[in-house]
């Protein structure tokens, strides 16, 4: 009998986003939280934990990585460095 898999995200401190730290098995969300605390925050690594059923995550496919992210590559005008700045202009 195996418990479902949960992905664990920890917020290392106030002002920081939750970051994926690993996974664990637990029978339900409450136990997953308790296990996550014991497993991933034994030395004060976090101030908040999310647990997410691994099966609930939809991920982009590594096989389509190139075409999937390609549209961003040809829009260099999204970067500030695209625009020439005349000499003498500051704080732009």
């Amino acid at each position: 009998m195996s418990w479902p898999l949960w992905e664990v995200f920890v917020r290392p401190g106030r002002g920081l986003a939750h970051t994926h730290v690993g996974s664990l098995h637990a029978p339900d969300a409450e136990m997953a939280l308790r296990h996550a605390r014991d497993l991933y925050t034994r030395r004060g690594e976090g101030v908040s934990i999310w647990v997410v059923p691994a099966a609930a995550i939809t991920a982009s496919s590594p096989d389509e990585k190139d075409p999937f992210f390609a549209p961003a590559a040809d829009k260099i005008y999204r970067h500030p460095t695209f625009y020439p700045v005349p000499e003498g202009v500051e704080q732009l």
Partner: protein
Amino acid sequence: MDSAEQEAFEATIAADSTIEPRDWMPEEYRRTLIRQIAQHAHSEIIGMQPEGNWIGRAPTLARKAILLAKVQDEAGHGLYLYAAAETLGVSRDDLERRLLDGRQKYSSIFNYPTLTWADVGAIGWLVDGAAIVNQVPLCRCSYGPYARAMIRICKEESFHQRQGFDILYTLTRGTDEQRAMAQDAVDRWWYPSLAMFGPPDAISTHTERSMAWRIKRFSNDHLRQKFVDMIVPQAEVLGVRLPDPALRFNAKTGHWEFTPPDYDELFAVISGRGPANRQRLTHRRTAYEEGAWVREAAVAYAAKAAARAASQSSGTAGPPRAPAVPDEVA
């Protein structure tokens, strides 16, 4: 096998980047990693036993609390590693069964008994010291989840080594009897610790390919030498003698020369003929079987709670349950 996929894999390895779980990888790379990570995880779990043996008999309450925290860390390390192995497409249950029925191995070192309290010190200083030398390069292993697990593990291991050193340091500053106890533990753990680095390079079966794939960064003999060079000066501070009459500093190479461990003994212990192999596996099997009711009860409780929640939210009785993370996601 798609050659474009193979090329992408090799380019990633060559660029010293990491392979991630859903990337294409050669089947043999996957199999090698599963075997190595599982063996590593099993070692952490079995490794709780020799030290757990002394939790109830630690000499002070502080030593007991520290040892408990250390053994809890070993359980944590096992779980980080099982989680990393699972990203390769195996299940933890399956790995656990392979350990219990002897199809997968664990480190030979944990088949030696802990006879005295000083053994707990020697394990921390020598065994965890050797583990750190072995494991630090794994933090840059080519498989991402394994490397990330190793970073966490190495951070925690340094506490382990220092607590071992601290136990021995206290003993060697104690009575004659305590000094003798520390020396006896070092005498017994020295060669098994040297053997932890595995067979010599000339007969190591997996080294070459693992190094090409950057699963392994340094050879067994290289790491063993590094360990000896690190330990000898520490032994002087401790005031213990390493049980090797051939130990001497070679000024030309800048390294300590030493007697290699008995590799026949290593192979005998790996194949099940060590002093405590049977005891370790029997204990693990018993714990697994006696814990079955807890695993089953937790699943039954979760199913009951889910059914209750479903009937509540489908009826009109009361508001729907609050989401698990109300304002954090918004």
